[in-house]
């Protein structure tokens, strides 16, 4: 949680995560370059490195993009999400190595500035098969740089979660550009259909997981927008419908509200964690606090405020329990406003 900033708030899980990730990246590069040098003795080391870094970064991007929807579909995979930002930064560094080696190999020692050369050396914008693929990679790399540079919680807090989230949604633009970079670049020269099939499978997995997860979320929102009664409150569920120390997520006037039951009381607060917009309603009450399933950010259930000294706050909702039914006023209170919990 973000009371003060350290470069990385290390803990055991993060160290384990990074260790496994870096070991996997090393194994990939060792296999690609090492076995590549044996299988293709005429290939130069630069070519193998360029291809190894590039394919490695693309593989990592597929895994990174799949983790989000996978965790929506199977929350028990959340350990994969916990330190995904380090995964993203590592992927950017792989892509940067690919770009840097390519820039030196293909554009250095000429009559033009290498970056200018990337943009002007192929002018066939009028042809699909000859379309300049390198500027696409360069733009994608710039987006990935922007994301890696703002990946720290400092930027998340200062840009605010919605802006930060929108900025980081650019990863999908980068993904599209990278796929185009590969399809219009190396796949124009390689003849093995297996390579096309691998990329196609990756795209189907990423797109399919997003569509399935999105469809499920949409179904949840579409059926759960409950009618408002005459007194302004909405009957959202029975008390027994909520598991102890857990929440039921309901949609009121288009917004998701997490209704928590704990210690014989019910409180309602926004479902959106202030950290990275994680689903608070899928969290638990731990040590008396609502705990976000994504990164463990905590909020007091009655006020929606993080326990001191932390400063995060989410909106709360007026709540009543009448005849075993939970009633919520859909009008949110200002973030951090304490609302007396409804006693069961």
């Amino acid at each position: 949680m973000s009371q003060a900033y350290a470069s990385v708030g290390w803990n055991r899980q993060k160290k384990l995560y990074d260790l496994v990730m870096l070991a996997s990246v090393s194994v990939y590069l060792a296999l690609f370059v090492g076995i590549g040098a044996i299988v293709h003795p005429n290939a130069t080391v630069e070519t193998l490195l360029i291809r190894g870094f590039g394919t490695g970064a693309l593989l990592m991007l597929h895994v990174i993009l799949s983790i989000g929807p996978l965790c929506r579909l199977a929350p028990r995979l959340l350990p994969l999400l916990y330190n995904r930002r380090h995964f993203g930064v590592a992927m950017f560094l792989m892509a940067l190595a690919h770009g840097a080696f390519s820039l030196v190999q293909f554009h250095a020692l000429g009559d033009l500035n290498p970056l200018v050369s990337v943009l002007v050396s192929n002018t066939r914008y009028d042809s699909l098969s000859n379309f300049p693929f390198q500027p696409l990679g360069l733009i994608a790399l710039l987006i990935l740089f922007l994301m890696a540079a703002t990946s720290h919680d400092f930027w998340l807090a200062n840009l605010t979660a919605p802006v930060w989230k929108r900025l980081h949604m650019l990863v999908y633009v980068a993904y599209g550009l990278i796929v185009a970079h590969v399809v219009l670049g190396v796949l124009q020269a390689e003849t093995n259909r297996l390579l096309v099939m691998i990329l196609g499978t990756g795209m189907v997995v990423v797109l399919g997981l997003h569509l399935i997860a999105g469809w499920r979320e949409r179904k949840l929102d579409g059926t759960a927008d409950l009618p408002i009664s005459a007194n302004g409150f909405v009957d959202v569920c029975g008390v027994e419908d909520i598991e102890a120390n857990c929440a039921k997520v309901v949609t009121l006037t288009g917004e998701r509200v997490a209704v928590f039951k704990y210690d014989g009381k019910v409180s309602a607060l926004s479902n959106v964690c202030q950290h990275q917009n994680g689903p608070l309603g899928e969290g638990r009450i731990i040590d008396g606090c609502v705990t976000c399933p994504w990164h463990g950010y905590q909020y007091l259930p009655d006020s929606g405020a993080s326990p001191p000294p932390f400063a995060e706050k989410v909106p709360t909702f007026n709540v009543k329990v009448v005849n075993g039914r939970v009633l919520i006023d859909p009008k949110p209170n200002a973030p951090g406003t304490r609302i007396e919990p409804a006693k069961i």
Partner: protein
Amino acid sequence: MPNNHEFYVGYLPKAPSGIAALAKRSVIGLVLLTMAVALVLVFGQQRFAVSFFEFGKVQEFQGVVREWPIPLLISGSTGMALVAEGKHGASSLVAGLEGHSVKLSGTLIHRDGSEMIEVIEGSVQFLGKADREVSTIEDLGTHSLAGEIVDSKCYLGVMNPGHTKPHRECASLCIRGGIPPMFVVRDKSNRRVNLWLLSEKGEPVNQQVLDFVSEPLEITGQVSRISDQLYFRAAPATYKRLP
């Protein structure tokens, strides 16, 4: 059976046992997938050409300079194209030495029997006027040939692969810098034949071909041979792009 009441909090020292076991299995699966993808990509790549850039192995060469239109060093009946370091041609290194014997230092580049020397700047030593005429031209007639324009330096070995679409930007930059463009075609036996590409008047054509490199083309022009080098003279305006 999974315990659905387990809840993972990343900053706590230990993950719940069921979630930890699933994470472990997932990670092992991902690592195996990573290794499999690496191997498929390694074996799925096209074979690399048998071409060589003897980087770090500087040799001395001796012969007669042919300065125009493609800088060559003629040694016996063999011609070796000359280029400078980086993405630059060697015209300035051999300027004024047409028909003269020289000694120079450089690095050998070779592929499919074609040889090229990357000349070290300042290494060209004038030895004297050559005794005999080195420019005997053999006219091989007009031909329509399908092939690809490459930058000869990368194609002959400095890069591998040094042709086709992924190499287009580099080829364009090399040719812009004076590396002679080469038209690579296949003969009836499907063997690659390399021809130096020139204008219809037999002049260097570098700046006019930049928009055509690394694309399948059909070019109609005059083929000729000087020593063991083939030349292809054609007007760039008549190049036809092939689908």
